[in-house]
């Protein structure tokens, strides 16, 4: 079968899952059925994945469940092409923010509609299910026009268009030329109409910059407003403990702490995980939930096999929306499955290296 037709059919199956989720219907097919077909497709169309399967002694035709398929480490996105189509057919290419000793990871996507459908369906459910049509979206980040290779900028722009009232980029995005426009944000928030809630989308380091710049000043948002925070600090701001930051954000915007919701995404994925603070009274901070087309499996960092329930492992993220790249991605974050989702425990810090041979992490931190 033609690769494009095969890919289109796989995309359609993922979008059918997304639609079923939006309509609260049963999934049209089991997760593993689609995962197996994706693994076989990617082994056929992505040369690196074929090599990885061969090196691990995995015969793609014999894969019968998702966990049998090797996961592609995020580092591979920096070292080789991870896509199942001809390069000119890429509709968008998202790149990781770090320079990683000269290279940025890149995730080329041929058909963004599946990405958009999944991100919006689950994002709306976790962040804005109760808001209806009227909301204002404020992004403490650059517009997608200013950062066209940022998957986060793309997602925020998507949310701004779909979840908020139509507005100009100047009144929506508050990072311009790499700088946070605190005065512009202050003015914009003062203009907000009471009764129309705001959705603030921000990185953790942008929030820290804002809080530092405000020096204790509050920018109270209308009732029922909420804040999405994502990402770490990457040396771009002072490190702030997650619980402390949540409290500071809630205080600054005058929202309950449970209205500060964490999002976890990666350039190498097409889907996101969310804290369920707004939709599940029993949810606790630091615990993220997956949409039905994503599965996070903690794996042993040496054997790459699933760890026992409740044990900490490295995140193997199976994202069915990664149709044309790698449906199973090996992240470097430590995770643990808990009652209501998956706990994100940050990157393994590792022991202090023995010897003066430079550690990869140290190179990265000094180059970025």
């Amino acid at each position, binding site marked *: 079968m033609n690769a494009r037709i095969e890919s289109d059919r796989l995309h359609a199956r993922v979008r059918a899952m997304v639609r079923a989720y939006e309509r609260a219907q049963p999934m049209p097919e089991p997760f593993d059925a689609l995962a197996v077909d994706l693994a076989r497709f990617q082994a056929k169309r992505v040369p690196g994945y074929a*090599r990885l399967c061969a*090196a691990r002694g995995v015969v793609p035709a014999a894969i019968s469940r998702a966990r049998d398929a090797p996961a592609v480490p995020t580092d591979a996105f920096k*070292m080789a092409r*991870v896509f199942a189509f001809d390069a000119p057919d890429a509709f968008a290419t998202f790149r990781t923010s770090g320079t990683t000793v000269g290279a940025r990871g890149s995730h080329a996507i041929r058909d963004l509609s599946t990405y958009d459908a999944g991100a919006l369906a689950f994002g709306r459910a976790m962040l804005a299910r109760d808001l209806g049509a009227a909301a204002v979206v404020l992004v403490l980040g650059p517009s997608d026009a200013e950062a066209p290779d940022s998957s986060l900028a793309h997602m925020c722009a998507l949310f701004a268009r779909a979840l908020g009232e139509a507005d100009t980029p100047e009144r929506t995005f508050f990072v311009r030329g790499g700088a946070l426009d605190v005065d512009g944000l202050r003015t914009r928030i003062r203009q907000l109409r009471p009764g129309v809630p705001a959705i603030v989308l921000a990185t953790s380091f942008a929030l820290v910059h804002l809080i530092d710049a405000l020096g204790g000043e509050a920018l109270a948002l209308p009732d029922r407003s909420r804040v999405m925070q994502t990402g770490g600090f990457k040396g771009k701001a002072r490190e702030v403990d997650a619980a402390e930051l949540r409290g500071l954000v809630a205080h600054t915007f005058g929202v309950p702490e449970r209205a500060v919701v964490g999002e976890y995404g990666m350039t190498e994925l097409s889907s996101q995980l969310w804290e369920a603070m707004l939709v599940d009274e029993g949810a606790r901070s630091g615990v993220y939930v997956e949409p039905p087309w994503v599965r996070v499996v903690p794996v042993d960092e*040496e054997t*790459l096999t699933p760890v026992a329930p409740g044990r900490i492992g490295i995140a193997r993220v199976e994202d069915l929306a990664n149709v044309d790249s790698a449906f199973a991605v090996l992240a470097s974050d430590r995770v643990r499955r808990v009652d209501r989702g998956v706990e994100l425990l940050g990157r393994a810090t590792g*022991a202090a290296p023995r010897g*003066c041979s430079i550690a990869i992490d*140290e*190179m990265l931190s000094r180059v970025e």
Partner: protein
Amino acid sequence: MRRTDEERIRDVRRVLDAGRAVYTERARLRGEVARVTGLSPEGVDLGFESLERDATEAELRTLVARAGDAPRVHVVLSANVFVAPLRALAVARAAAPRVTVRPSSRDPVVARALVAELAAVGDASFALESERDVATIAEGEIHVYGRAETIAAARAAARVVVRAHGPGLGVAVVTGALEDAADAVAGDVVPFDQRGCLSPRVVLVAGEPSRARAFAAALHERLGAWGGRVPRGELTGEERAEATRWIEAARFAGECHVGEDHAVAVAPMEGHLGVPPPGRHVVVAAASTPSDAVRRIEPFAPFVVALGTDDVRRVTPLAPARARLSALGRMQRPPLDGPVDLRC
């Protein structure tokens, strides 16, 4: 009174005397060094061969010239290879009449042994100390050997000059016969299980990609043979995890030869080289032209401490600034002419 260069050289020679004495005693120290470093006993024996025991007059003159001058030097040793304290003490002694040494808390064996030997021959200029806040040091210089955060902390707290020697890595450039070069590079990779900043982790092979692939296969074979004679020591869980990730990514990106105690990857012509973690892991890349070679190492050039090659004359212009140049097979044994790391 300020010492003359001859007096400084004489004082450094005492450090070399102590090095020879420690080398003679290596069988006694072997077990403890193996325990604290994680190296295999055979790896410890091999590492002791890199302990400096002699130097030419010209090398010591260069060392003295590079060492500077201070009334006292405080040496702070942290992460390093186990024989590295000798050079650190030699540089400090060249610089100052009095030296205090704070050994690595994890790996104090050779530093303590050297200071003991120096005391035994009547050199009372060295003193060991276990803990001291660098902020309390009001005189002389501090020589810090360690990771970036250790150095940054020392610089932030210190009231005196800090000379820092940070971590790095080695790069090898192969232009000639592949089999000979594989022999030599394997001999540079194995010592200290690649935990030293002189250890090559990246090899550029001049020529077509097929030459890089052939070299990788040859290196894989040589490292396998080395593993039989000098088994790799125990890697920490974090090191094993990092190796697993790198091997998986390398398998995706291209060829990767995985042995029991090592792995050798072939990088694709385009894209990131994917610098491997220590532990006898090497990435091999083809460089079709000199400018291609420069392009491939440029992203991590600031971290390159050593560059080994089989054609020093041709490769010298390509070397990152202040990287030590040596012949393949000699990367782990730079002359005692100053600190290993000349970047500072």
